[in-house]
C-alpha cells in the first residue's frame, strides 16, 4: 500500500520526476485521450515490471538496455495490434505517440531502477503505484487543457464503437468562447509551467509554515 501512495505522491512520474513528457504533452488535448493514455501506460508499465522482474536472472549485464527495450517493445507492439483492430479511432488519435511508449523514460527507468533489483511482487506494486500517479496527473492536465481550450469535457468519443454513443459534457451552455490557444502546443507548455509553478509554490508555503 505504501508503495502505491509513494508512486502517486512522493515519486509522481510527471510532477516530481519529470519523465515521459513527450506523449503527455502531445496527447493531453482532451480528457478522454489523456485518461486512456494513462491506462495504456499503467498497463505497459505494470506488465513490463513483472516480466523484467521474472527474467532478471537471465539478463546479462552487458545487454541490459537492449533486452529491456525488446521486452517493452514487444508489449507495445501487442498493444498496437490490439488497439488498431478493436478501437481504430483511438489508435489513429494516438498516432506515433503509441509507438513512442517504447522509449518512454518512465517505463525504462522503472525497469532498470526497480524491476531489475526487487522481487516480482514489489515490482508489480511499484508499477501500479507509478502508473496510477501518471494516470492521475495526466488526466488532470488533460482536463484543465480541455476546459480552457474547448469548454467541454469529453468522456467517450474516440472509443464510441465500444460504448455505442458519445458522451461530451458542454460546460457553460455554449456561452463560452473557447481559447484554442490552450490546446495548441505552445499552450501545453504554458499550462504545464503554470501548474507546476503552483504546485511548487504550495510546497514552498507548506515548508515554511512547518
Amino acid at each position, binding site marked *: 500500500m505504501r508503495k502505491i501512495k509513494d508512486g502517486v505522491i512522493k515519486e509522481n512520474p510527471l510532477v516530481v520526476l519529470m519523465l515521459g513528457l*513527450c506523449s503527455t504533452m502531445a496527447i493531453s488535448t482532451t480528457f478522454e485521450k489523456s485518461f486512456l493514455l494513462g491506462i495504456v501506460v499503467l498497463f505497459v508499465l505494470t506488465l513490463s515490471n513483472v516480466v523484467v522482474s521474472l527474467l532478471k536472472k537471465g539478463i546479462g549485464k552487458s545487454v541490459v*538496455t537492449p533486452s529491456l527495450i*525488446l521486452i517493452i517493445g514487444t508489449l507495445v*507492439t501487442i498493444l498496437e495490434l490490439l488497439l488498431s483492430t478493436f478501437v481504430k479511432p483511438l489508435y489513429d488519435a494516438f498516432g506515433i505517440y503509441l509507438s513512442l511508449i517504447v*522509449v518512454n523514460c518512465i517505463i525504462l527507468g522503472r525497469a532498470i531502477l526497480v524491476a531489475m533489483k526487487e522481487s516480482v511482487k514489489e515490482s508489480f506494486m511499484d508499477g501500479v503505484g507509478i502508473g496510477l500517479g501518471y494516470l492521475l496527473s495526466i488526466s488532470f492536465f488533460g482536463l484543465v487543457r480541455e476546459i480552457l481550450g474547448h469548454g467541454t469535457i469529453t468522456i467517450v468519443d474516440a472509443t464510441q464503437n465500444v460504448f455505442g454513443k458519445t458522451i461530451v459534457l458542454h460546460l457553460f451552455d455554449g456561452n463560452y468562447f473557447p481559447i484554442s490557444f490552450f490546446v495548441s502546443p505552445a499552450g501545453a507548455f504554458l499550462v504545464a509551467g503554470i501548474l507546476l*509553478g503552483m504546485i511548487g509554490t504550495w510546497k*514552498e508555503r507548506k515548508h515554511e509554515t512547518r
Partner: protein
Amino acid sequence: MKLVSLFLTALLTENIILTKFLGLCPLMGNSKREGHAYKMGLLVVLTTVLSSIICYLFYYHILVPTETTHLRTLVFIFTIASIVGTLEILIKKYFPSLYKSMGLYIPLITTNCAVLGVSILTIDHAFSFLETFVYAIGSSMGFLLVIYVFSTLRIKMDQAPILKGFKGTPIAFITLGIIALLFTRYGL
C-alpha cells in the same frame, strides 16, 4: 524547391520539440550547460539522419516485401540502439575527450523520442528517399537549434529573481511556451 520548403518547415514551423514535443526529456535534463547542449544536439543530428535512412531502407526493402510492417516499432528501436552503440564505440576510440565529457549521456540517445519519432514520421508521411534525408536533417537541426537557444536562456534564468516555487522546471516550461509561440507564428 519542394525540398527547400520541406527543410525549412521541419526546421522552424513544424519544429519537432515545439510542435510535436519529441525530445523534451533530454532538453529538460541536458540543457544546463551551453557546451554540453550543443555537443548533445550534434550527436542527435548524426544519429537521427543515420537512423532514419537505415530505417527507411529496412522498412521498404525488408518489412514491406515480407509483409511484416507491424514489427516496425521493434525493428526501428533495435536499429537505433545498434547505431548508438556503434557511435559510442567509435567516439571512445577516436574522440576520447568528447567521450570523457559526454560518455554517460551517449547511451541515452537511444531513448530520445526525437530519433525514433523522426524515423516513424518519415514512414507515416510516405516520404521518398531524398525527402526522408532532407526531413531528417531539417528536424534534427531544429532540435539542435532549440536546445542551444534554450541552454543560453537557461543560464540567464538561473540568475533572474524568480518566485521560489516557479524556479527550475516551471519557468523552463513557460519559456519554452513563449519560444513555441514565436516559432509556430501562432494565429498567422
